[in-house]
């Protein structure tokens, strides 16, 4: 199937929360049509890779099909969290936007449904064959 590559934020939105040294990031499909693509591509492995530089001790994904949403729980990514971290953003509030930036292969039929307008800095038009 022919696909285009687009950043995840054109298919989904999300929010970061924190408890101690644990971060959770929701990923909510903009449309139900995107859900199978997200389930297939936004995996624990992909997310662990996106946050590899923060050395998560564990990444878990929970699926909520009826909400077309998934929840990632990342342990050990906040340098100790709000009490210990030296980061300006010790809660890790910004982390959802790392996840929302990962590239997704989008079937051509779904391209007209993508959220937002074309973003030239990240939107790739290369064609891949799967």
């Amino acid at each position, binding site marked *: 199937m022919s696909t285009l590559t687009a950043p995840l*934020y054109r298919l989904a*939105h*999300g*929010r970061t*929360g*924190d*408890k*101690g040294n*644990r971060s*959770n990031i*929701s990923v*909510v499909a*903009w449309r139900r049509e995107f859900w199978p693509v997200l389930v297939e591509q936004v995996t624990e492995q992909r997310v662990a890779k996106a946050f590899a*530089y*923060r*050395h998560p001790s564990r990444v878990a994904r*929970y699926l*909520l099909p*009826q*909400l077309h*949403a998934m*929840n990632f*729980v990342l342990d050990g990514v906040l*340098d100790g969290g*709000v*009490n*210990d*971290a*030296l*980061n*300006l*953003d010790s809660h890790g509030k*910004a*982390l959802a936007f*790392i996840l929302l930036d990962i590239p997704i292969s989008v079937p051509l039929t779904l391209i007209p449904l993508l*959220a*937002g*307008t074309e973003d030239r800095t990240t939107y790739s038009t290369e064609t891949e064959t799967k």
Partner: protein
Amino acid sequence: MTEECLRVGCAAGFSGDRTDAARPVVDALIKAGGPGYLLFETLAERTLALAQLARRENPDLGFEPLLPELLRPVLADCLKHGIRIVSNFGAANPEGAARCIARLATELGLRTPRVAVVRGDDLSGPLHRTLLQRALVESAEAPSIVESMVCANAYIGAEAIAAALLDGADIVVTGRVADPSLTLGPALAHFGWAHDDWDRIARATMVGHLLECGAQVSGGYYADPGFKEIPDLAHVGFPIAEIDADGNCVITKPAGTGGRIDEHTVKEQLLYEVHDPSAYLTPDVIADLSQAEVREVGPNRVRLSGVRGHPRPGRLKVNVFCEQGWFAEAEISYAGPRAEARARLAGEVLRERLRSLGTVRVDLIGVSSVLGDDAGRWLAAQPHGDARDVRLRVAINHAVKAEAERLPREMTALYTCGPAGGGGVRTGMRQRLSTHSCFVPREAVSTSFAIAG
């Protein structure tokens, strides 16, 4: 909605939230008529420990410092229209908060409100030492920390809140309770559900979860231009839940306010700070979102249903806070040609000067300052660029205040000893707290309420 719908509005989502949020919420509750409650959630994890430190300095303090500002605009109308107020703004001194409310009512020429104070969360006293030590050992924490702790508080549930409301309280003041319990308490009092009606308790608990962060369900912490447009964010409206007798709800907001409530704002908040969505633990219930449904039923009206519940946990979570040394941070700016190179050099100078202090975090605001990690792996991997307006930020933790103070001194010294053109040094220091979570048997914590005054 049936006639017996219960309306619960939330006018604060943390200590430091807007003090003008309550007025439109109260106006909407008055206009709707029927039973209405107003919540203020003002107690994040660390807020309570900071309040305890404030109370040590002055025994009359230790509750939400903005309490008079939060209540003054709405107290008269709440008392007049029977809108009852539930809040954890008691923090480390609920009795002090109750006295503050009584003074405020007098100042405003109002009748003396019936204020209930919920007790039982505070496990800081000598009576609970052995209990805490045992719980800390079970959680692989050092039991000796109880000797120097700032405070220990259990997350208690909605029972005492509901009992106080059934006793006729106009205002219920708590210290640490689970945030959703602030909503569940009024629902229990209003609907009279059985203590083991887990599905309804779980539904009202998740209603509380949607409300507890204030504007985070109605367009706050959401807007992203071009993708997530929110009208009039500057005047974002705070949420009101219309709860039915089964615990399902419609989330809405006052007419004429900014923000937006739709399927997407609600889903983001529903999962906020949730871990396993099939087992969201509170003192009152284990809520299960596996079958939850979120549906738009009108403009700025979203229905949450389908939440299920399982019996409440046998243990209560306790947070123990200890003083843990000092945090210092300092900044300096570089601008113009080669600003980034000069800022990077300044960072290297500080790392060298502060080598003995442990981890020294270096950020280049304008290049990378937030996504990076404390160890500096992220920044090291970024290619050197030619940013022309860069602010160097450096931060450290240290157990000893005098050692932590070396950072602000070294940063200031860059004026004359650092790279060319450094300006705008700002420095800050504050005491750090450590959090230690453990669990105690529910039976070991006795909760109750007392009418103040």
